[in-house]
């Protein structure tokens, strides 16, 4: 069992954002989570990545119970994520944004920084190399020195991917990677996601663009009002009655 979520529930006051969801992410596959707006997808991601504490239920990662682990510790175990709004530091260069992604694998502190110790220099170099490596992977070597604010939306998404990859993850959670991207560029991102999985990573993504999900996802879970209503291969989900109901007669799925 790679990542397993057992009877996960999250309650905000009177609102059940995620209700009793059991779900497994399969290793080395593209796992997708879909559902109408307000279905609890983002809350679900925040629970897996550790930004929210669940009201009840457990999360295990590679056999270890991580339900109570803070987000930064989960990242160290190998869970990385991106956000819908990329949260990048827009006024800095691409490389300066990505360098920090490898920080969790380094240990130099304030004093190392002030005294410029050997350890600091070594680790700084390692972070830079890692950044260049992941930028090459996502195909942004050419814009490494550009200011993020001057990049296209699609390039920004790639920077966010690179940042997640720089943490040396095993599982990457992608929160609506194709939001705000035009169809041509979406294809590029699809290729990148497939390439990540081929490189040995496991991907779990939330996405609204059904064509993209149906094309690349190996498994799909459907959430509606915080509850899991269906799960299976794209083919199974496409023909699932409950899913079609949830999406108003299925017009959104095609």
């Amino acid at each position: 069992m790679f990542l397993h979520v057992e009877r996960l529930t999250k309650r905000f006051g009177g609102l059940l954002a995620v209700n009793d969801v059991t779900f497994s992410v399969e290793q080395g596959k593209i796992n997708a989570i879909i559902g109408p707006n307000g279905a609890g997808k983002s809350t679900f991601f925040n629970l897996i990545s550790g930004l929210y504490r669940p009201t009840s239920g457990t999360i295990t990662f590679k056999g270890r119970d991580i339900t109570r682990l803070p987000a930064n510790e989960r990242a160290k175990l190998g869970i990385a994520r991106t956000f819908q709004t990329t949260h990048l530091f827009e006024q800095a260069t691409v490389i300066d944004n990505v360098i920090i992604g490898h920080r969790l694998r380094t240990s130099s502190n304030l004093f190392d920084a002030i005294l410029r110790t050997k350890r600091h220099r070594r680790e700084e170099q390692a972070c830079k190399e890692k950044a260049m490596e992941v930028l090459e992977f996502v195909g942004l070597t050419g814009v490494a020195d550009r200011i993020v604010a001057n990049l296209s939306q699609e390039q920004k998404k790639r920077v966010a991917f690179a940042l997640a990859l720089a943490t040396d993850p095993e599982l990457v959670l992608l929160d609506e990677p194709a939001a705000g991207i035009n169809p041509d560029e979406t294809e590029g991102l699809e290729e990148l996601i497939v390439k990540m999985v081929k490189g040995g990573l496991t991907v779990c993504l939330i996405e609204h663009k059904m064509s993209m999900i149906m094309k690349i996802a190996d498994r799909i879970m459907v959430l509606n009002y915080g509850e899991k209503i269906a799960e299976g291969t794209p083919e199974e989900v496409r023909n699932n009655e409950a899913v079609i109901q949830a999406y108003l007669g299925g017009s959104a799925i095609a």
Partner: protein
Amino acid sequence: MAIFEKRRLWLAVLAALALAFPLLVTNGYYLHMMTISFIWMIAVYGLNLFAGYTGYLSLAHAGFFAIGAYTLGILTVKAGVPFWLAFVSACLLTTLIGALVGLVALRTKEHFFAIYTLCVGYIIYLVIDKWDGLTGGVRGFIGIPAPADIGPLSFQTPVAQYYLLLFFLAAVVFIMYRLVYSLTGRTYIAIRNSEELALTLGISTMKNKLASFVLSVFFTSLAGALYASFIRFLGPDIAYVSVMFDFLTYLLVGGIGTLAGPVVGTLLVTFLSQQLQFLQDYRMLIFGPVLTLLIIFYPHGIAGGFIRFKAKREEARRLKLEANRTVAELAASRQGRSERHVKEG
């Protein structure tokens, strides 16, 4: 690398100017002004580290400044502790208090943090104001000694004190420089940029915020202790919100989150204040709106504006270069085609 060399050159010129200042300007009053502005700069660097680079507005820093100053005063005057021992103790004690405050305050976010620190600052002010027996209350605290000699070095003359403060300022700038361009500094900036993102990148935000806060309090307490030994008189006013406001004004005018900001802003504002001295108590009539307008229309300050201007120019140059290259390539390919044309024809 040319930019780097240029920056070194600028730094060398500035350092030379700072070193030569007492020789160039023999007017004692200006020397005094410059020395005091060094103290403010150190405090503003403290504020800048936390507000500018880590993204949290601490309104308790005037209080920490005052604790540093009063601790030095109390230790030297009331307890008879040797000056430099008292100096180090004052900084360490304030930093310790800062660490305790930070441990609790940093669990709160944004508005709560600002309100919390505002209240901590006010508690510090009230305690200094009311605890007559220890601090002299509203009457003030007098008789603080000037810095004691270190071996052959004596700090009794204004010029010697100028160099002493320049030394401390240079040390603070050096530490800030090293920090900002390090993995640790990048970590702080990542937290400022988005705490959620930083967390999911595996950064312990609490630990880093605390370290940044503690170092920031240390700088501010250092400024406070230096203030006490330079001015040699203390009143509860130095813990007051208006001192906090002065720090913020210096920082914002200069450029929050920039290395040069505290120096530029402090110099400019203290110089302008001198020109506006006839206003005395009413200078806030001018500076209040100036700060507010600045934050609305020019939130990056002088240094920040300059950096942005340079970045923009760089980007424009890059675009132009790229455009030229594309045009050249197009022209080349067209030429190739026409040559082929000729051959075929």
